[in-house]
């Protein structure tokens, strides 16, 4: 197929031509990547070789896609220098933290992303709590968090231990992302350092482009503002309706305030949807917050005339049934779409897996069970990312069995022992293959369990518990290992499909979140609802077929909301 020459819309053209800083709000499918590529072409075509553009985003997937495009277009080479293409965190780490270290700390800074998972157990009999239960500044306990862990009793000893643990982390230069942002902002704002870094960045970078800025947290926004003040033109590209990184501290209110710091001429919209059918483009507007529905994005892409209506799958019962997956498969197949291109997405992988009848993690923290889940995950994953995650889980179980973590977090162990993936992956892969559950190989769950014990026994430390004590019998194992016929659809989290597009997608709301989401969308609940934004993100990935599964009680409400936007919507009761 020969790609059509790119003919930008007026809005796109304005963004491509705009010199200096701008705040760009773009709807789903607005062609952001294309526009960023064209912007880069314009900037680099002026014979200003040797200077770079910083392309920043918030997920590796988004970064790789853009990097791939820029390379294919011949706009950057390998290495990308003097450009920088990477996540916002990587940018700060590489250019502001790693070269200079942490003030008052002699150790070389190291990134320990799972620092908050570190367990706090002040004495042997005490209940173990993860470090994230304690405020990172004051060290005081966060009541909501210990409630979630069912903690009762005196917390004083835990708080002291947590403070000491954080101090020790810092002494060793071990930072997580939140620490890193704080350290970076402090350095940029330091008058002496800032006086050097400002001109240095301004001289090196023609422009700083931050994609997916709706995922910025307040510190990120302050950092972007610093660059703007330092004389680096910044392009902030975002869709406030897609802010789904609340756990990273991302906030929509601050984003609004940040937008207002840009002048009228510096706020550029991109409202044409090049991805979805007209029905989908209209329907998903109903999934935005009630006050954000004024502009209905116009469908401009090749699928704009797709006749298929948005499908609302109404399910009954207290759990998420596998009939969702079956119906979705039927719908997609009727349109001639290959199942593997059409994922089932939800806020958690578990909900999606339920909808497809895949074995999934019931949340039990037993090593045997976790091993079974990891092995199943490995064989049920259709994309590389899921397989890699499953291998990490298997490796982690191997380390735990061997008593190798020794009170460190997984990533701390990897950093300390300087373990590269190629050092452990072959072993983990071999284990995943050897324990693949199929009737031909294992007569029963027990047979699988015995084989797992036999294979893993050599990893145990000499004088510890026996393998039978470590890998206990678990009544749920059969659920984790069940070999449901695979429909070919992949269960994915909404976070993992951000920025992507699919011919068909099925978005599943669990019974526990659906009412809250629909209440919010109907304007019956005040405040902010990130779950609703996730549904919006998931639904707006669809090109031709969008299916949304939700409980019977909420399905008609959603149908009514969506029909009000002017597109066709059908409701199917399962």
């Amino acid at each position: 197929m020969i790609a059509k020459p790119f003919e930008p819309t007026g809005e796109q053209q304005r963004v491509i031509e705009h010199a200096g800083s701008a705040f760009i709000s773009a709807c789903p499918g607005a062609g952001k990547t294309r526009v960023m590529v064209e912007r880069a072409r314009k900037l680099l075509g002026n014979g200003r070789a040797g200077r770079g553009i910083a392309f920043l985003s918030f997920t590796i997937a988004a970064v790789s896609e853009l990097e791939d495009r820029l390379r294919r277009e011949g706009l950057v080479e390998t290495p990308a220098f003097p450009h920088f293409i990477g996540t916002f965190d990587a940018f700060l780490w590489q250019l502001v933290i790693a070269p200079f270290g942490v003030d008052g700390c002699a150790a070389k800074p190291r990134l320990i992303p799972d620092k908050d998972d570190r367990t706090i157990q002040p004495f042997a009999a005490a209940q173990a709590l993860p470090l994230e239960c304690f405020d990172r500044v004051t060290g005081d306990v966060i009541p909501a968090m210990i409630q979630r862990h069912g903690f009762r009793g005196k917390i004083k000893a835990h708080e002291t231990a947590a403070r000491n643990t954080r101090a020790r982390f810092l002494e060793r230069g071990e930072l997580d992302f939140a620490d890193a942002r704080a350290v970076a902002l402090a350095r940029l704002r330091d008058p002496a350092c800032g006086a050097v870094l400002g001109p240095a960045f301004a001289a090196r970078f023609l422009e700083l482009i931050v994609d997916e800025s709706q995922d910025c947290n307040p510190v990120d926004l302050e950092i972007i503002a610093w660059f703007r003040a330092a004389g680096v033109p910044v392009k902030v590209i975002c869709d406030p309706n897609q802010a789904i990184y609340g756990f990273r501290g991302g906030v929509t209110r601050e984003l609004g305030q940040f937008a207002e710091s840009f002048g009228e001429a510096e706020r550029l919209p991109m409202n044409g949807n090049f991805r979805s059918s007209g029905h989908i483009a209209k329907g998903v507007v109903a999934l935005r917050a009630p006050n954000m529905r004024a502009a209905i994005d116009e469908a401009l892409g090749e699928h704009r005339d797709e006749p298929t209506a948005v499908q609302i799958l109404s399910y009954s019962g207290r759990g998420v049934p596998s009939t969702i997956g079956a119906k979705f498969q039927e719908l997609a197949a009727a349109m001639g779409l290959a199942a593997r291109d059409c994922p089932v997405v939800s806020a958690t992988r578990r909900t999606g897996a339920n909808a497809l009848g895949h074995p999934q993690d019931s949340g039990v923290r037993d090593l045997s069970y976790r091993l079974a889940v990891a092995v199943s995950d490995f064989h049920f994953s259709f994309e590389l990312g899921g397989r890699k995650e499953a291998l990490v889980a298997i490796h982690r179980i191997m380390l735990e069995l061997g008593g190798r973590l020794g009170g460190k977090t997984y990533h701390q162990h990897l950093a300390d022992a300087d373990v590269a993936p190629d050092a452990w992956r072959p072993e983990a892969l071999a284990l995943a293959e050897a324990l693949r559950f199929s009737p031909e190989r294992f007569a029963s769950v027990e047979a699988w369990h015995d084989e797992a014990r036999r294979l893993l026994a050599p990893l145990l430390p000499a004088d510890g518990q026996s393998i039978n004590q470590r890998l206990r019998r678990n009544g749920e194992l059969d659920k984790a290992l069940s070999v449901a016929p695979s429909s070919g659809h992949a269960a994915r989290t909404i976070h993992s499909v951000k920025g992507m597009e699919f011919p068909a997608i099925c978005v599943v709301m669990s019974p526990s979140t659906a009412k809250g989401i629909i209440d919010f969308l109907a304007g019956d609940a005040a405040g902010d609802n990130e779950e609703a934004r996730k549904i919006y993100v998931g639904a707006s990935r669809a090109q031709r077929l969008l299916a949304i599964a939700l409980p019977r009680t909420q399905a008609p409400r959603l149908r009514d909301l969506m029909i009000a936007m002017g597109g066709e919507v059908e409701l199917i009761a399962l």
Partner: protein
Amino acid sequence: MFLQKLRLNNFRSFGQSEIPLCKDLTILVGENNGGKSNAIDAIRLLTAPLGGRRELYCEATDIRFGSADRKFELTGTFTELSPAQQGRMISAATDAAISGCVFGLKYDESTGRFPVRPVLWGGYQEGNPEPGCHEMIRHVYLPPLRDAKRALASGNPTRIYALLNHFLEGGDPEALAKALRRGVESEILGKVGGAVEVGLSALTAGVRRQAASLGFANDEKLIDIARDLRFKLADHGIEPEDLRYSGHGYANLLYMATIAVELEKVNDADLTLFLVEEPEAHLHPQLQAAVLSFLDEQAEKSRKPRAGHQGPAGELQVIVATHSPNLSAWVQSKKLVFFRSFLPVPAGAAPGAAEGEPQPLAGVPAEIVPEIEPNPAAPAARPRRETRCIPLAALGLDPVEARKVDRYLDVTKSALLFGGRVLLVEGIAEALLLPIMAKKIVLKDDADKLRLFRSAVFVPIDGVDFQPYAKLLLSPFNEVRIADRLVVLTDGDGGEVAEGAITPGVGRKRDLEALAAGLGASDLLEVVINDYSLETELVRAGNAAVLKDVYLKLHPRSGDKWDAAVALAGAAQAVAIQKLFETTRKGDFAQLVAEEINKGTAFTMPAYLKAAIEALVK
């Protein structure tokens, strides 16, 4: 931006050394096997080649021989970064103010991984530099011509200039040198292009009719031309390896052509280090200075700030390794770094003990006492020679002294930078007479000492201002000095000195000895003086008859004048003899005296000359 210092740790002949470098041009001088090439190679390993094709890789043999510590490390510190360079080099910053950047190359066999992969680190945290930033610093290496044949055989197109040489005939290298002096780049390229065309037509006339069929465009860069030429030659069944090099005139021309072509490319990098090894092996002496001054000018020009330009700065820094006195004579002394081989104090030796003193190479050039390494017979604990550097700028010469040294270090005197045993004399006469006197009279029965004497450097300084030289030669730096032994031979000049006052010679001796004492080098310096002057002392030693014969050869009708002067005594005689030599060229006179001594004419050595010769070989 420029490479401010290069640190070498356990690399080849270096123990732990730091070499400071100058912004535009640095000349590494010193004896053979002194380690200059090793320093150049260190820069080649540490930076990327401008042409992209690496010719040198880290090897196990780069680890200092016999070192139990199976690793080496090279570190380059760069300074004076522009804001744009600070932005590009941020991940290799030397400090929070990014006042410089630093890259290191670590080669460590002890990790047990095979093959050993050298690790490049950057910045004071010794972290991973941002991929690509290191390539903003490049080098161009111009090897000694004697290596060209091997390089050619390896198929490297940048070396094909030697091949082109084969086809070029006639022409005037001098004219090109003049063009170089004016520093007009395009003009040189034009000339080179023309020259290449001449050569190509010669080639094609012999092999094929149409030059056009070779597909060369006039404006193509020489490197490309050379590469294409190689292919074309292969097509015609000519093996480049079989070609011999002939006619050094055009080797010169093409060498400079290579320089010009490389200069075209430096604008893609922030800094290009031009590494020139033994330019004296390529260039006629008169061209050496011209080429270097051209490069020096280019380096200076490359640093002119360009308004609004924030891309790669295209700066140039030239580093030359040479043992040609011509080159060291030509640049300011502060741009010279002296290299020498040094035998460190053996570990465990009592400090201050006589045997524990550093044992330098005793001024014997490496050719005479070859260092046999590896030496399997030697015990592992035996201290090994290592390279030490003395940056002349670090020797604490004040500006006046530095200016004097610069003025004095002309071609005839810069040999003193080769160190070892140095004899400083006032004029050409002493320099002519002493070797023959040592050979025929003083050391005639002692072959060993005569050999030592011959390896010494003789420098007539044309005057009596020994002080700056002595300071240069005797100042210690990192345990080493340029000279191992310094003998100053000077006249007493007592002729017209008032009764009771000290002679100027005694005054000079006193000052020089005080200087040496201040530098902790009293035992290395010997100042030998006479009462009056060379000619007077020769007469006083009882050689009046021989000298008169010689004098009459130069002034056939002045016999009476001679007799009258010699007939006097003491100071009056000295003054009179000095007067005779006001109209006589001392050099010619000394030459004739030397001939007499060589013929075997009986001659009595003045005691002070004998003392000077013996002091030099002590």
